[in-house]
């Protein structure tokens, strides 16, 4: 298939394709980080993760409309404000959900799956009742649209670079929070041994709530960022849920580094296969490979070594 093209063209295409893979990687990391915290650290299977993302997207939509109506001069920067508010809104909802029922279910992970699935149905209907069944379009500030031409044939999409930057920022922030802060230390203590953590004076209930809220908040930010590349509708969250879970599980649930590594592997595999095969088959093959590898290595890429 390459015989018709000059080497310069091929080079630029491979560069572009690599970049496409990196964007997909950032998208996966962004989707999966929140879930990795909630599922990996707390063992809660949050099936409503996609709906928390969509909450962030709808918040962004509302904020963009507010700015367009009342503060058109500041429209260029609304996106940052929208992301912060998305984080707060999704985090607050997360804390509420944790308080109202997740906290009773920590011993029953499969039941959290059912309960959060119920929550996702309710949230979908809320979105539909409030925002209507149709998808809403979020208008982006001009500087976020378009691309930077590097050479004649290589062009870098600005929103893709924005997503990459955002992913990097959030990943670093989560890393610092989990591994360098006192709070992160407490979280890890609770994950490893709850009774012992409680015995040394850690307020485990509070830690749980904040951890859950943080995971949901990151989902909100991810949703906000996805308005740049995807659709915003009541049921759009369901599109993400399988991919997200596979990324987290494939990485080894308890390891944040594993999540990032797995997002990288899956995204590169998928974008390479998409280039050589048809879109549907690429998707099937990617999922299939992940499932087969998981069957061979059920603990995922990076497993925490624990004595059972």
């Amino acid at each position: 298939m390459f015989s018709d093209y000059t080497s310069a063209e091929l080079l630029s295409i491979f560069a572009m394709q690599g970049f496409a893979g990196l964007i997909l990687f950032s998208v996966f990391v962004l989707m999966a980080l929140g879930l990795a915290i909630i599922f990996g650290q707390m063992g809660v299977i949050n099936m409503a993760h996609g709906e928390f993302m969509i909450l962030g997207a709808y918040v962004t939509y509302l904020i963009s409309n507010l700015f367009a109506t009342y503060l058109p001069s500041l429209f260029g920067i609304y996106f940052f404000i929208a992301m912060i508010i998305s984080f707060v809104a999704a985090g607050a909802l997360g804390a509420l959900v944790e308080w109202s029922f997740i906290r009773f279910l920590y011993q029953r992970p499969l039941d959290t799956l059912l309960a959060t699935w119920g929550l996702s149905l309710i949230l979908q209907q809320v979105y539909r009742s409030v925002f209507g069944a149709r998808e809403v379009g979020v208008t982006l500030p001009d500087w976020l649209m378009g691309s930077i031409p590097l050479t004649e044939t290589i062009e870098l999409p600005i929103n893709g670079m924005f997503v990459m930057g955002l992913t990097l920022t959030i990943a670093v922030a989560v890393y610092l929070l989990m591994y360098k802060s006192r709070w992160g230390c407490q979280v890890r203590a609770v994950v490893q041994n709850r009774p012992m953590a409680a015995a040394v004076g850690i307020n485990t209930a509070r830690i749980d709530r904040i951890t859950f809220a943080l995971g949901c908040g990151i989902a909100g930010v991810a949703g906000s960022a996805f308005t740049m590349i995807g659709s915003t509708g009541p049921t759009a969250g369901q599109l993400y849920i399988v991919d997200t879970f596979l990324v987290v599980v494939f990485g080894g649930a308890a390891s944040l580094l594993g999540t990032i590594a797995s997002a990288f592997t899956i995204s590169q595999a998928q974008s390479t296969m998409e280039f050589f095969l048809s879109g549907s088959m690429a998707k099937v093959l990617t999922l299939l490979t992940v499932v087969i590898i998981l069957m061979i290595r059920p603990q995922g890429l990076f497993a925490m070594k624990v004595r059972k």
Partner: protein
Amino acid sequence: MTMQLKVNQRRLAFVHKLSRRWLAKAGLAVCAGWILGASAEVNTTGLAVTDKEVTVGILHSVTGTMAISETGSVQAEKLAIKQINAAGGVLGRQIKFIQEDGASDWPTFAEKSKKLLVNDKVAAVFGCWTSASRKAVLPIFEQYNGMLYYPTFYEGLEQSPNVIYTGQEATQQILAGIDWVVKEKGAKTFYLLGSDYIWPRTSNKIARKHIEKLGLKVVGEEYYPLGHTQFNSVINKIKLTKPDVIYAIVVGGSNVAFYKQLKAAGISLPKEKPLLLTISVTEDEILGIGGENMEGAYAAMKYFQSLDNPNNKAFVEAFKAEYGNNIVIGDVTQAAYLGPWLWKAAVEKAGSFDIDKVRAASPDIELTTAPEGYVKIHPNHHLWSKTRIGHALKDGQYKVVHETAELMEPDPFPKGYQ
């Protein structure tokens, strides 16, 4: 009468074997039928028609993933019914509708259509949106002899005596569009892209045949699963193959992702290098995609909200008065609006609500008041209609840049394109 009688007899015979209680029930049903039908020679088959009213069904998804698309059709059908009632109804009877929710679930569609036909005995059903839902209800309409007015443009390959297809079938939409880009824009190479299911695949098949017949070239053909949101790879392939035209039949949430990413990747649609021609994006979809992302694309359809004729002006005005000023009207919404009017015309021509008579009267029914202009029912139950090319503007509307001179003949089983 014969049909209904047969059903009743069979039911009675069977019921008798099993339980007396049912016998009483069946008897009641027969009585009810007699009372309803007593004074109505216009209704010899026990449909839900009284001296004052006639009942029809509306069957769309109000919940579930398809609710996004089907809302407009429900609104249009209700508006048409309201207007017909205000103008005196059908054969002097007011139309009453029973609305059922298909819930984006095909067996539910089948179940509800059976309820409408068997329990409610509706005189016609306006509904369905996806091909899958139509395929699910089709055997039921054929078994119980109902009449379905189906509004969506679709892949063709079907012609049922129990369905009137008020949207375009694939060839009507595709041929005119491709001819136009070839003639007006000098297109030579095409990249075909679609969501992975029957409508885009069948349509692209027809498109490919037509392109090859014209001696031109298809440089790529790609399908992505429904709901797919990452199109960077295919956009790179498009950049590599440099087609003159991207022929896109992407649907649903994927649509939004595709156009946003296309724009971000530096393919500017207004530059028309390559030009983008779609048959799947109506004004409804642009709401989600965003006018600024769609600006400069072309669409081939039979109706655009901006169509400049008195019928359409009145229609758009009435629609906005009913559902608010911000509402947009897409191709399917207009086709759904035609349903009740076509049915009214057929009933009045037949002088009866009987399904068989309405069917017999349907071919060559004309509608001069249609918002899209003049339409006529072909004996194959599809509509003769013109195809237009719209140029997407930033405000989410299409500007009509071309209109076929003649009505396009519907051809659900196109010879040479299969």
